[in-house]
């Protein structure tokens, strides 16, 4: 049985294909269109999934869409009615769009499917899952658990913003929900907006900014903005927010509370933004922890699955892990809306089609999240040659050796191997790598390679068997969704003068044996690397360890700021020639910057809209 899951029309469109209950392919549309967070219909992602499985659209038994448009329409309508006559301007602008996109969404989808199958039986084959059901299914069904509590936290789906489900075998039962407009994701997005970052893409920058500040607004947020109960449920005070009927997240009352207008994008960051980031992060952690505690207490279930955009807050995830409320925690790597495509497909397979589920020991069903396209060695060579690249073709061992040596020589290395990752994190398929021991690596990567904000930290990939030697974590973290501190004996305390620095200055102060991946509060967003899921990446880190004694490397996504992660060898070569990456490794091809045709260099910094 073949089920195609689709997410589209809001942000992060994606497609995923299940064949007999196994996830065989998944990809985000942005990687193909090169438009970050592309919300359009995922035509190319669907093409890829079908082509990878060697099937035609006609062979698909069901297509599952990740939310229910009528339910969303109901929420939009009721919200405007609740606030009327306020919000009439935005209501009037929104009507034509809603009528078409929500009420006629089935027709929109049918018309898209016609490009593959003119007479597609959409009456019987097109299914719609609920948004939170899709998220929960994406977190539970591919997890390695027979039974688990599933917590989904995001901006909003149709009505639900926070939901609890219990998964057992092939059943997934929704238990409780919190409804719009009371939303943890929208609260975090409100602060994202207020601190001058882009909503739905800047949230993790706020998370990265938080350690620079003091949570001096936490009490005020909990007093004025959020009514938080012991069990983690909450209501927001809508007097301070504009997202229900307006076009902004926050309003003048919010500005007055926090002492000024929102920061404009690209304006200089001040202590106020850092403290706001620290405060909202602390509030979010408090809410997530209370939710996790009440879930653990009420259900007595030993495993927890997390999904929804807020589950990308890996700092909060790390705190839940350290509280040891659950034996195991599993986070869907594409916890945001792209993962809804995966969940919709799983929900259709196990829920609608009532198919049984097999749990495979400790292995999960995401295959390391390496679910995207890959290229054969000969294809890579052909494509790189056509792009004008000069490269050496080595043996596999030679390539591993050369790359490990380049890393040890403190070069920034573009690494392109195997299948592309699904989800926002690069996991050693499409990564830029560096030596974490280097005190200058962070500066080099931020300013010369990724062209991004200077305060942002980098994250480590570490061999699984060595993780406890370097970080205070004992669990797997294959998807870089857990944050834990560097072990104490590898840290270096900062002096008072060093503490007072900000941004790249503070980040550049060596804080441990691996300064490039240690954030200013000694934390790190960890990826544990497992031989079973990514042998080439594992071999590379092992070779680096053999040379240097360090089983950790810097892993950042292979893209510049505002660009989606690279997908094809050509994308990789373009990014290589447009930044100061010194070595590029694509399959067994090794490219060095100094021998490339200088006319192929490009000014890449301004090519993409800043995110």
């Amino acid at each position: 049985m073949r089920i195609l899951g689709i997410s589209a029309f809001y942000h992060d469109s994606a497609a995923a294909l299940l064949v007999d209950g196994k996830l065989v392919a998944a990809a985000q549309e942005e990687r193909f269109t090169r438009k970050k967070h592309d919300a359009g219909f995922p035509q190319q992602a669907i093409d890829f999934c079908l082509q990878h499985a060697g099937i035609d659209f006609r062979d698909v038994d069901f297509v599952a869409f990740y939310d229910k448009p009528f339910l969303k329409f109901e929420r939009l309508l009721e919200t405007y009615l609740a606030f009327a006559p306020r919000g009439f301007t935005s209501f009037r602008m929104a009507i034509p769009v809603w009528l078409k996109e929500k009420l006629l969404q089935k027709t929109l989808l049918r018309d898209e499917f016609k490009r593959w199958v003119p007479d597609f039986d959409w009456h019987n084959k097109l299914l719609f899952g609920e948004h939170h059901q899709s998220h929960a299914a994406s977190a539970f069904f591919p997890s390695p658990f027979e039974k688990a509590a599933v917590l989904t936290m995001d901006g909003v789906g149709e009505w639900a913003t926070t939901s609890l489900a219990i998964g057992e075998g092939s059943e997934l039962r929704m238990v409780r929900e919190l409804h719009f407009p009371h939303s943890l994701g929208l609260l975090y997005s409100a602060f994202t907006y207020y601190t001058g970052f882009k909503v739905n893409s800047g949230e993790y920058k706020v998370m990265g900014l938080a350690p620079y500040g003091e949570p001096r607004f936490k009490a005020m947020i909990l007093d004025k903005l959020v009514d938080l109960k012991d069990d983690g449920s909450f209501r927001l005070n809508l007097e301070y927010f504009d997202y229900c009927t307006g076009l902004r997240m926050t309003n003048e009352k919010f500005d007055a509370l926090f002492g000024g207008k929102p920061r404009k994008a690209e304006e200089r960051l001040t202590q106020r933004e850092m403290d706001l980031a620290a405060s909202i992060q602390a509030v979010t952690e408090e809410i997530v922890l209370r939710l996790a505690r009440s879930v653990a207490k009420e259900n007595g279930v030993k495993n927890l699955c997390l999904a929804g955009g807020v589950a990308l807050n890996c700092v909060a995830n790390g705190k839940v892990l350290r509280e040891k409320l659950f034996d195991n925690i599993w986070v869907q790597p594409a916890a945001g809306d792209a993962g809804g495509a995966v969940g919709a497909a799983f929900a259709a397979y196990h829920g609608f089609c009532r198919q049984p589920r097999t749990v495979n020991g400790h292995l999960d069903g995401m295959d390391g999240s390496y679910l995207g396209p890959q290229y054969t060695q000969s294809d890579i060579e052909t494509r790189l040659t056509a792009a004008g690249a000069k490269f050496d073709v080595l043996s596999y061992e030679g390539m591993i050796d050369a790359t490990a040596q380049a890393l040890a020589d403190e070069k920034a290395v573009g690494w392109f191997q195997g299948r592309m990752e699904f989800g926002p994190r690069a996991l050693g398929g499409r990564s830029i790598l560096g030596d974490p021991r280097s005190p200058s690596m962070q500066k080099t990567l931020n300013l010369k390679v990724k062209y991004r904000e200077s305060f942002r930290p980098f994250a480590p990939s570490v061999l699984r068997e060595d993780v406890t030697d370097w970080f205070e974590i004992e669990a797997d973290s294959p998807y870089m969704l857990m944050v834990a501190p560097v072990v104490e004996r590898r840290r270096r305390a900062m002096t008072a003068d060093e503490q007072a620095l900000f941004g790249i200055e503070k980040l550049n102060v060596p804080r441990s044996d691996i300064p490039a991946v240690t954030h200013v509060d000694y934390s790190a967003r960890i990826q544990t690397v497992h031989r079973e899921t990514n042998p080439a990446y594992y071999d590379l880190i092992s070779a680096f360890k053999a040379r240097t004694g360090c089983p950790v490397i810097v892993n950042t996504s292979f893209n510049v700021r505002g660009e989606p992660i690279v997908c094809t060898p050509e994308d990789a070569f373009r990014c290589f020639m447009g930044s100061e990456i010194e070595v590029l490794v694509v399959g067994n091809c090794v490219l060095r910057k100094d021998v490339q045709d200088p006319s192929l260099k490009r000014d890449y910094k301004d090519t993409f809209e800043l995110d």
Partner: protein
Amino acid sequence: MWLIKELWDFMRVRKKFWLLPIIVVMVMLGALLVLTKTAIGPFIYTIF
């Protein structure tokens, strides 16, 4: 026709019949907005 039937089924399941008048008016307004941009446009004026 399928849209009307599905909307009706939806309202029945959700027990939100009070949405019906609003949706009907919005669909009619939407249709007007679309039709005024077509050749029928000038004739809509005469209805009012």
